[in-house]
């Protein structure tokens, strides 16, 4: 092993360098010029995103603790794009609300540390690296959720997130220790050779699953979601619902399909039941929400239920469809959160009632929101339809017809509440509608990228073929 093999960790090294560079910039830039840090961070991260697409080698590091392959690299790029859009959308918020408190740089540093944790988590080759990545990705987000220190609601969401996350990771650790007891190793490769289905292994698996289910906010572990999303700054809510959830979905899928494959008879049933209750509870609770952030929180719980449909298959088709769906979900959910953020930044309004008559005053924002909601609901011309369609195909190819039927029922329910927002924006008249406002250039760019993504990804079929090719290499 020579130093060039460290280049396998290129994503991680560049991101760490950016984080440290921002620390230097924080010290060396004068107080009245702090807003240049926002531009610097977005610029550096943009470069990092582009560099992430370049060709690189694949392999193992540190005796198998860290490994990369094409699909992992692609998924890291998906996360990068998501975070870049998020930074563009939250740049104005930081400039206006946070910079005068002298706390602008911390936001980027915590966000990037959390992303670094996700990189390590999804390229983990053993449970130790996985656990460290999980914690590194969770703890900074808890600090960010409590970031608005002047607001009580933000502190509350922070404490709710950190306590639930600590409990979840503790339970998951106990599960890992039981898996270690039965197999004698913490390396994924060795475990997958030894593991057999017995009572102790199943207990360990269930405890372990609970920890990751918390990150994805599957239903028995979803209670933190709505409260944290409502209280946290909107960009952090978007981060939790898109990036954090996407990374956790990816690593859970990889673990289930490779390491825990011998337990498939067990986890199939678990996922079957959890998918159904997650979809139903997420959708039914979303029906009665008035606050847009809570609304999107329950909608993201329901989306997690749909993702499980692809996960239940346990084959290559499942990997491809889930990654494709997460890619689309990144764009559609970030678009929805972006519009909520733009409106909240200008007017401070977050309720569905305030959106009435929005189309007359802010047609562009309403159109982006409509595209995002159509994509989340899965209406044909936009990308979300194809994502859901492929997920359902994957589940149906294994013969889970009842599950697919229930999922379709849930799509119908979700269509109702997504259209409630569209109706409020387009059909309702309102004397005190939100007045016309102009967003700044970053926000416009962020919303434009998401809108283009929603329209293009579904129609550009080579992308799905590409993901399908990549997923071939994964299962050997």
């Amino acid at each position: 092993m020579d130093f060039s093999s460290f280049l396998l960790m290129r994503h991680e090294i560049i991101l760490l360098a950016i984080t440290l560079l921002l620390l230097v910039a924080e010290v060396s830039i004068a107080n009245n010029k702090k807003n240049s840090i926002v531009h610097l961070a977005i610029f550096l991260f943009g470069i990092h995103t582009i560099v992430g697409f370049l060709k690189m080698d694949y392999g193992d590091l540190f005796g198998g603790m860290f490994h990369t392959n094409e699909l992992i690299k692609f998924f890291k790029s998906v996360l990068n794009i998501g975070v870049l859009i998020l930074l563009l959308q939250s740049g104005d918020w930081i400039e206006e609300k946070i910079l005068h408190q002298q706390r602008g740089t911390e936001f980027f540093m915590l966000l990037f540390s959390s992303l670094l944790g996700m990189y390590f988590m999804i390229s983990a080759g053993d449970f130790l690296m996985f656990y460290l990545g999980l914690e590194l990705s969770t703890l900074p987000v808890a600090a960010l959720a409590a970031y608005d220190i002047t607001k009580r609601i933000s502190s509350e969401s922070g404490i709710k997130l950190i306590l639930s996350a600590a409990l979840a990771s503790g339970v998951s650790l106990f599960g890992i220790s039981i898996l270690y007891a039965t197999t004698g190793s913490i390396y994924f490769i060795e475990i997958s050779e030894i593991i057999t289905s017995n009572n102790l292994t199943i207990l360990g698996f269930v405890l372990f699953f609970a920890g990751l289910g918390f990150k994805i906010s599957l239903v028995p572990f979803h209670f933190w979601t709505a409260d944290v999303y409502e209280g946290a700054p909107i960009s952090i809510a978007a981060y939790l619902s898109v990036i954090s959830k996407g990374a956790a979905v990816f690593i859970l899928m990889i673990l289930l399909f490779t390491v825990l494959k011998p337990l498939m008879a067990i986890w199939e049933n678990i996922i079957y039941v959890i998918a159904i209750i997650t979809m139903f509870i997420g959708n039914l609770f979303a029906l009665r929400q008035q606050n847009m952030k809570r609304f999107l929180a329950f909608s993201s719980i329901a989306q997690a239920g749909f993702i499980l449909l692809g996960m239940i298959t346990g084959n290559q088709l499942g990997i491809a469809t889930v990654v494709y769906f997460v890619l689309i979900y990144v764009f559609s959910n970030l678009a929805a959160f972006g519009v909520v953020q733009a409106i909240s930044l200008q007017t401070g309004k977050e309720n569905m009632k305030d959106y009435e008559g929005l189309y007359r005053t802010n047609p562009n924002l309403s159109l982006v929101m409509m595209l995002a909601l159509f994509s989340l609901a899965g209406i044909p011309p936009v990308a979300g339809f194809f994502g859901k369609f492929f997920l359902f195909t994957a589940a149906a190819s294994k013969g889970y017809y009842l599950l697919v039927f229930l999922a379709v029922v849930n799509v119908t329910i979700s269509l109702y509440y997504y259209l409630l927002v569209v109706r409020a924006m387009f059909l309702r008249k309102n004397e005190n509608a939100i007045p016309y406002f102009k967003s700044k250039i970053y926000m416009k760019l962020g919303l434009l990228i998401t809108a283009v993504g929603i329209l293009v990804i579904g129609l550009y079929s080579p992308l799905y073929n590409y993901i399908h090719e990549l997923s071939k290499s994964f299962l050997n």
Partner: protein
Amino acid sequence: MIEGITIYEILTLTTIIFFIGVYGFLTRTNLISMLISVELILNASVVNFVIINKYLYPDVLQGVFFSIFIIAVAAAETALAISIIINLYRQISSVEVKDTEIMKY
């Protein structure tokens, strides 16, 4: 290895500690006590790792290393949670769970 004590007794102990932690987390009404309960859960896993390593797989020290990392991360976790609790206390002058429920349903 401790003379006269088998792995069953120690694993029973750690399992009891684990469930005391879970029970405490669900029933305590004070944020600090909830944090202590989480520590119990984490410590149960730490002891588990060390014991399993020592009794079952003494050749490779994977479990011991794992437990060291858990201790470090648990400390970071507690520090962050305490700092958020302090920030909350500045605003509502309370660390009771029942005072942190302005967001519901």
